[in-house]
């Protein structure tokens, strides 16, 4: 009995001593950051995916690109390429590579040489050249086929050890923007060769080697990814030694873990619960990300072939109410299909104010005082639209006020998209998320005549004058000229209104105040390159 009692007492003391919050921070805790990510990465090579979760976990942390995009300066800046120049009327780009860039040295690979032209050639040929050894390892390269980059680039030529030419089939000013995305990363050709000798080429995407600010340490599915600092990084690197992705799919739990200090930084907090993070040690940041949700009219079907009807319906919708209810105010009212952060944004855009009177008048003018339509609402959540069905319901009642009877249609996501491509809808609520900083990414995939054929043009709208402007805009590299062309394109959109832009939603993240330097670039995944952690003492000084 006494023995049992003493055991009990000692057990309680251990438990209670564990309860005291530690006053001094232990070194590994102050030298590392925990990012509670929302899911497992599919692979450790962003070339193979378009999934945001994988890009967040890999692109900016493990790898570098030839060039980077600086969102503040709205310009391309050197990365692994020190400089570059367009040659042959923009059909050939020459890149001068940086000297002295080290690849990661890990327990599974020790590089014997620095980065050179061979690595660039290998990395591009991986997705470009169907005959290259590694092309079939991993299978498909969705970003490059969606942007047509694999068709645009003819070949990658090594001029000398530190110079590379990329030859294009035709001039395309969106080319550099695509190179600066998270997908156009540089792999190690030496590592690839080593793996193919060992007959384990698939390891290249599972045990990655890059030149980025962190190197791969370990991955436990559903639990964590561990990265450590790359000690020989070629530019200013992180102020921490360790970066851990703690995989936490549940948004509620992510927020709780931030509060209890088990996460230093979390993506996608629940926007309806943001007030729970209203604490002294937590900062919630957000920014307009390059996305847009819109209501597209199927212009192949009467009466939507009449611009007057499209304008009338647009005046009938109370978009501000949608932003308040569906986005909880965490979105910006869209005045153009381009987000206001784009350099080609036209701030003169015509605003389709909520005006039921005008809507009714325009409808009568067009000869449709009674109208019955359907609204297709997508069944899934997207960054640009957290709840399309609810949005459709709000619009349904707005439309009823002007005498339009709307029916809401929804299918399982794959069926939904297939039927949309066949043009079975009257109108649809959907949206777009841009992959790169070039405004072309918002126009050609969504509204060109070519996109009608591939199914990307949800409005089935083909306007030769508009198309002409888009092609002129990508044929030139002069920024001012391009800006003018895109503004006239937006002008045509405002008159023709094949689709009504609704909102540009914001991407949210929340973090401890002690974490500094984590960047959330508008085009691309989270970037921990300059991340540091300040101790509580330093924090109070500031």
């Amino acid at each position, binding site marked *: *009995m006494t023995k*049992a009692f003493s*055991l*009990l007492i000692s*057990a309680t003391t*251990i*438990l209670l*001593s*564990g*309860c*005291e*919050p*530690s006053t001094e921070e*232990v*070194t*590994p*805790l102050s*030298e*590392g950051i*925990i990012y509670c990510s929302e899911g497992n990465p599919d692979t450790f090579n962003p070339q193979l995916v378009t999934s945001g979760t994988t890009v967040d976990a890999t692109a900016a942390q493990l790898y570098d690109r030839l060039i980077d995009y600086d969102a503040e300066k709205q310009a391309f800046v050197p990365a692994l390429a020190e400089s570059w120049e367009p040659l042959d009327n923009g059909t050939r780009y020459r890149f001068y590579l940086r000297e002295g860039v080290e690849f990661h040295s890990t327990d599974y690979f020790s590089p014997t040489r620095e980065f050179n032209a061979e690595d660039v050639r290998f990395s591009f040929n991986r997705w470009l050249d169907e005959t290259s050894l590694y092309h079939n390892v991993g299978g498909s390269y969705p970003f490059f086929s969606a942007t047509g980059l694999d068709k645009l680039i003819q070949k990658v030529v090594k001029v000398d050890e530190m110079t590379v030419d990329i030859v294009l089939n035709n001039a395309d000013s969106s080319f550099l923007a695509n190179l600066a995305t998270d997908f156009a990363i540089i792999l190690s050709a030496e590592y690839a060769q080593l793996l193919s000798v060992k007959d384990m080429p698939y390891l290249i995407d599972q045990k990655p080697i890059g030149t980025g600010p962190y190197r791969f340490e*370990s991955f*436990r*599915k*559903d*639990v*964590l990814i*561990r990265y450590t600092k790359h000690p020989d990084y070629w530019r200013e690197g992180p102020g921490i030694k*360790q970066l*851990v992705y*703690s995989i*936490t799919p549940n948004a509620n*739990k992510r927020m*709780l*873990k931030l*509060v*209890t*200090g*088990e996460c230093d930084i979390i993506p996608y907090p629940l926007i309806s619960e943001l007030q729970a993070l209203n604490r002294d040690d937590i900062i919630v940041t957000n920014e307009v990300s390059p996305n847009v949700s819109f209501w597209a009219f199927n212009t192949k079907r009467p009466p939507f072939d009449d611009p007057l009807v499209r304008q009338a319906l647009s005046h009938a919708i109370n978009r501000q109410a949608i932003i308040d209810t569906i986005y909880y105010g965490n979105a910006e009212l869209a005045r153009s299909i381009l987000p206001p952060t784009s350099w080609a944004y036209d701030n003169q855009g015509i605003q389709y104010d909520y005006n039921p009177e005008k809507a009714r008048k325009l409808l009568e003018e067009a000869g449709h005082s009674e109208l019955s339509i359907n609204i297709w609402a997508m069944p899934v959540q997207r960054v640009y639209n957290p709840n399309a069905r609810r949005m459709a319901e709000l619009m349904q009642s707005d439309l009823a006020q002007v005498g339009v009877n709307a029916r809401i249609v929804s299918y399982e996501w794959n069926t939904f998209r297939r039927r949309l491509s066949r043009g079975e809808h009257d109108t649809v609520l959907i949206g777009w998320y841009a992959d790169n900083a070039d405004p072309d990414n918002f126009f050609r995939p969504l509204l060109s005549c070519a996109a009608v054929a591939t199914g990307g043009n949800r409005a089935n709208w083909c306007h030769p004058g508009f198309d002409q402007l888009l092609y002129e805009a990508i044929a030139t590299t002069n920024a001012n000229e391009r800006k003018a062309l895109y503004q006239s394109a937006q002008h045509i959109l405002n008159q023709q209104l094949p689709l009504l832009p609704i909102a540009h939603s914001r991407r949210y993240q929340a973090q401890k105040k002690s974490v500094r330097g984590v960047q959330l670039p508008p085009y691309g995944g989270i970037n921990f390159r300059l991340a540091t952690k300040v101790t509580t003492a330093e924090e109070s000084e500031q």
Partner: protein
Amino acid sequence: MIRYLSSRLFVFIIAFFLLTVFTFSLNFFFPGDPVTNMTGVRTFSDYYPVISEIRGADKNIAFQYINYMQNLLSGNWGASLSSGDYVFEHTYQHLFASLELIVGALVLAVLIGVLSGIFAATQFRGPIDKGVISLAMAGYSIPVFWLAQLLILFFAVKLDWLPITGQINPLYGIAPQSGSILIDIVISDSDYKAAALQDALNHLILPVIILSIMPMMLLLRLMRNATQEMLQKPYVKAARARGLNEFQVLIKHAVPNATQSVLQQVPLIFSLLLSNSIVIESIFNWPGIGNWLVRAIFERDFPVIQACVLIIALTILLFNLVVDLYRGWRFPIVRQE
């Protein structure tokens, strides 16, 4: 004793056989190809014809079962369909992580449950006894998941004393080896063992306490009733008449006999713990067998589902066997039943 031992072992072997027949037939009940379900090798893989030949997919069912058993016993449990890792290597890590919680909860439940049960018995029908018993009823009736949310809200969110997910702060960089975090810290080469150990204990507190509540309350009631029953027996009266004090009567005479009937219920308590641990592990992101099973079900990862079912059932069987053998050795009356 020999006869008792062999009969228990025989029952165990029969149960194990039925269990493997069940998991073997699961391969055929699950959708998809049976060989894929067993090995995790997909039908379009180059390796599939070879493995299908080895597993005797075209032979009769008895051959396939024997083959399955050979692979099972030699630790060849196939590869996960979702991660491609070998299942067996991960099974024991997950099992040890679970056992860490379960053993912790069992020890806590026995310590507190048994002691307060005995105490309540001595206060039979008194106000303390009534209080303890109503508390036990309430504690037993609270659903685990709800209690977990409540304690998380209080201890983690409001007071900010305890963490809520995982085994340890991942920044300590403790590599999983055995799966049990305390053992892993001790055998690791970390420079911060003491701090890591304290952090791991902090992570253990909430799940262990929550997991232990239900069996603790059950044990409390069982122990109280059994002890009380013993205290009514004539031999206890005789002991008192011999002049033994109340404490000696309790410890030397009433309690040992009371444990006999309580011990009979311990395997039941153990399976209660195992099934509750599935819920607790999911709530606390504990990398144990229950959490693994739940994820595998979501991902339709059949080799993993099978391994989890097998290992959970096997653990319960083994525990039953051990408790049976102990009871048979300790209490002769059990052997005669």
